[in-house]
């Protein structure tokens, strides 16, 4: 079995401008949704209390809402989680509440609602000071990843590669966030972890292509820069698709079997992987070209050596 039977290098670079314009449009759309609707942040970031309960049979949500409203929580959000029998209740932090007791009072209120008694599945309470910290820690982690990758790629390859790879992959991150903003999916800590993991993973993609670019520059002197890039992308495209396909199989398995807890985690990975293929290959490479990569940047040291020998 072999999926890819490519006779000639595909002229990707001829369409470089098109790819960059597509990217720019998706990127701007993502930014637009992020700016207008914003992220639906989980309780970990906003602070508040979250109670998940499970009923023996699907309960009516309206009586639960009313009971909570009567108990002094008119701002409680009540919704199903995963299945109709599981209910998730979100309570924002308020200054006038004894935060340590909220979860117990909520449980007591739920038990007083007529019908079958719920079983407590999980409680999460996050104080206001923790939420802010998590958000700033997340931003710091993102900065550290960007800095680390740029420095590593700059040392290992060339600053042009480092800059293009990071721009291409940051644009992925923004697009994932854009999806979360558009669909108002819950953005939690595991999703943040997934986004950063995908960032590291997509950079791989660019690394593999760049590795080939470097090799081709050294081996085949008759090719122009766009031709070198075309050749590098074409000869790695089989690997790109198969690798991402395999990773996606794993992620799909999480999406199917992982339940509600892993749902958005797997969702972020799926978007990240799909856009990762596109951007790290078809966005990073044109960027490298615009930034003016050329053979001399790779072959120069070797030539000096030869002269010295002569």
């Amino acid at each position, binding site marked *: 079995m072999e999926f890819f039977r490519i006779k000639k290098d595909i002229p990707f670079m001829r369409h470089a401008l098109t790819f960059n314009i597509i990217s720019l449009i998706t990127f701007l759309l993502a930014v637009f949704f992020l700016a207008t609707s914003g992220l639906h942040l989980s309780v970990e970031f906003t602070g508040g209390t979250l109670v998940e309960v499970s009923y023996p049979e699907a309960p009516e949500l309206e009586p639960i809402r009313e009971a909570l409203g009567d108990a002094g929580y008119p701002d409680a959000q009540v919704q199903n989680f995963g299945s109709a029998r599981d209910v998730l209740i979100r309570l924002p932090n308020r200054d006038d509440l004894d935060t340590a007791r909220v979860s117990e009072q909520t449980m007591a209120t739920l038990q007083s609602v007529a019908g079958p008694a719920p079983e407590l599945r999980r409680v999460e309470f996050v104080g206001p000071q923790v939420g802010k910290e998590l958000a700033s820690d997340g931003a710091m982690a993102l900065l550290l990843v960007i800095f680390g*990758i740029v420095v590593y790629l700059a040392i290992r390859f060339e600053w042009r590669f480092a800059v293009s790879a990071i721009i291409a992959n940051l644009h992925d991150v923004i697009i994932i966030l854009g999806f979360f903003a558009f669909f108002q999916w819950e953005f939690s800590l595991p999703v943040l972890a997934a986004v950063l993991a995908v960032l590291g993973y997509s950079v791989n993609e660019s690394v593999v292509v760049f590795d080939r670019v470097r090799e081709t520059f050294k081996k085949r002197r008759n090719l122009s820069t766009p031709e070198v890039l075309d050749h590098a992308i074409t000869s790695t495209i089989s690997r790109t698709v198969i690798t991402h396909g395999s990773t996606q199989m794993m992620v799909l398995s999480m999406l199917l079997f*992982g339940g509600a807890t892993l749902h958005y985690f797997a969702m972020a990975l799926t978007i990240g992987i799909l856009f990762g293929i596109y951007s790290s290959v078809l966005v990073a490479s044109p960027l490298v070209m615009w930034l003016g990569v050329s053979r001399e940047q790779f072959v120069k040291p070797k030539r000096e050596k030869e002269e010295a020998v002569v």
Partner: protein
Amino acid sequence: MNRYPLWKNILIGLVLFFGLIYTLPNFYGEVPAVQVSSGKATLKLDPALVAPIEQTLRDAQVPYDGLFVDGNSIRVRLGSTEEQLRAKDAIEKRLNPDPSDPSYIVALNLLSASPTWLTSIHALPMYLGLDLRGGVHFLLEVDMPGAITKRLDATAGDLRTLLRDKDVRHAGIVREGNAIQLRFRDAAQRDAARNAILNSTRDLQFVDRDDGSTDLKLIATLTPVAQQTIRDFAIKQNITTLHNRINELGVAEPVIQQQGADRIVVQLPGVQDVAKAKDILGRTATLEVRMVDDSPGALEAALAGNVPFGTELYTERGGSPLLVRTQVVLTGDRLTDAQPGFDGQTNEPAVHLTLDAAGSRIFRDVTRENVGKRMAILLIEKGKGEVVTAPVIRSEIGGGRVQISGSMTTAEANDVALLLRAGSLAAPMEIIEERTVGPSLGADNIAKGFNSTLWGFIAIAVFMSGYYMLFGVVSVIALAANLLLLVALLSLLQATLTLPGIAAMALTLGMAIDANVLINERIREELRNGVSPQAAIHTGYDRAFDTILDSNITTLIAGIALLVFGSGPVRGFAVVHCLGILTSMFSAILISRMLVNLIYGRRRKVESVSIGQIWKPGKAGN
């Protein structure tokens, strides 16, 4: 050219062998167990306790299949949940004759069912996080400004006493914010005060302030070093106190750890009663110093059931009864520090107490009036007292430095010091994060994580074997070895495995296959260019190595960033992710190469390589 030297094969074999051994405990599952640990800080668990426990179980006719002693606990492995409950009751009755005052904690626990030889080489199953086993997690923040204010208030009192003793006249000493303001009528008195204070303590630094009013001011603030000491002390004391309190909950494996400068993580696996846990965390205990009633006949009368008025009957640590007056001489509020050490003259182990100024004065007066008598130091918790020690007063003790010594071992001195410090919280704490996971959700999470990994792995295995044939099978074996080594490493390090951790495991496997795809594609490409099979395998592995290294390092950078800045679920993800990247490098490159070498390396002439169809451009018909 495609052969590994013997040592390399043996080394890889050994790594796999150890991987298998350390993964093994995870397959045995868990069996019910009863865990006995000490319920009081003054009581060290004695390994000699094993004999009575064994005897008790034999008497109660409860069969058990293993009894383990480690540092702080004795665990008995039992056949069923029913036997577990019977064993717990029997042991509880035997060790804690007085249920209202338990000396030992007898808790239900789960133990790995793996054979003893595995446990003895420290091969344990993975340590499951709360989201997988159920339980309560609290993050507490210690109110450090509160601790500092408390100390400044005490210091202000000390300064008043000090200046009175040194005959320095002042016009008022008050705490204002984070400083103590001392007012004086003239500069001479101010200088005298400063010198006197500097001679007695190094924790304060001074600034003169003359703001036009009639009074001259001296502003004293705590030095940065002193503030740091107070913070360190506050968090340590709060942790110790929490330890003592949580012991009462009878939790089998509580986790109480410092996180950052001013936070404490408390994890109570298996606990569902959150309300009780919160009560216990928030409770206060006090220390009391009282006089012992040694009047002849009084103790005998009390033992006969006729406790004299104004006294209470206690049992000393040695077990002998003690009659203590109800009148409190001094409370723990007056204690500023308690440290273990040695007696200056006899070199015996001792505990050194430091009292604040008011406490010192009271203590001096009481000891002067009661030389030759005994005083008892009690820890009062839940309205119930325990005599920590009851020494004889040899002479008047002034200066606020008290030494408790006599027939103590070094360990006991440590315990007493700890207990005295642990009496109360050094500073108030607030719960800033709470996470409760019910046991059913925990079991669900394990099943979901396991199924995701399993089906993902099967899908990849089927695809790889179909697409790359024998090389695909080799890749799948390498991937399986990767999983084995990752589980072994997690078991060996006893890193906490959470649901995001399992997700990371699945994701890492999905990403790890990349290395093998890179290698296989390279080999195909070499073959396509007409290179001989042996050379193609060689260059394929060789060329792919650089790329694999680069791509794994970029992934590792992201993993490390998550590890550094992540907390809670993100950290659980990052640990597994980083370890998984390391094991995948090993398995994808070395193990798969070893297998390929074993298959092809020995043959002199290799006609074709089973790596799936190779399509060559230009060939007709394809």
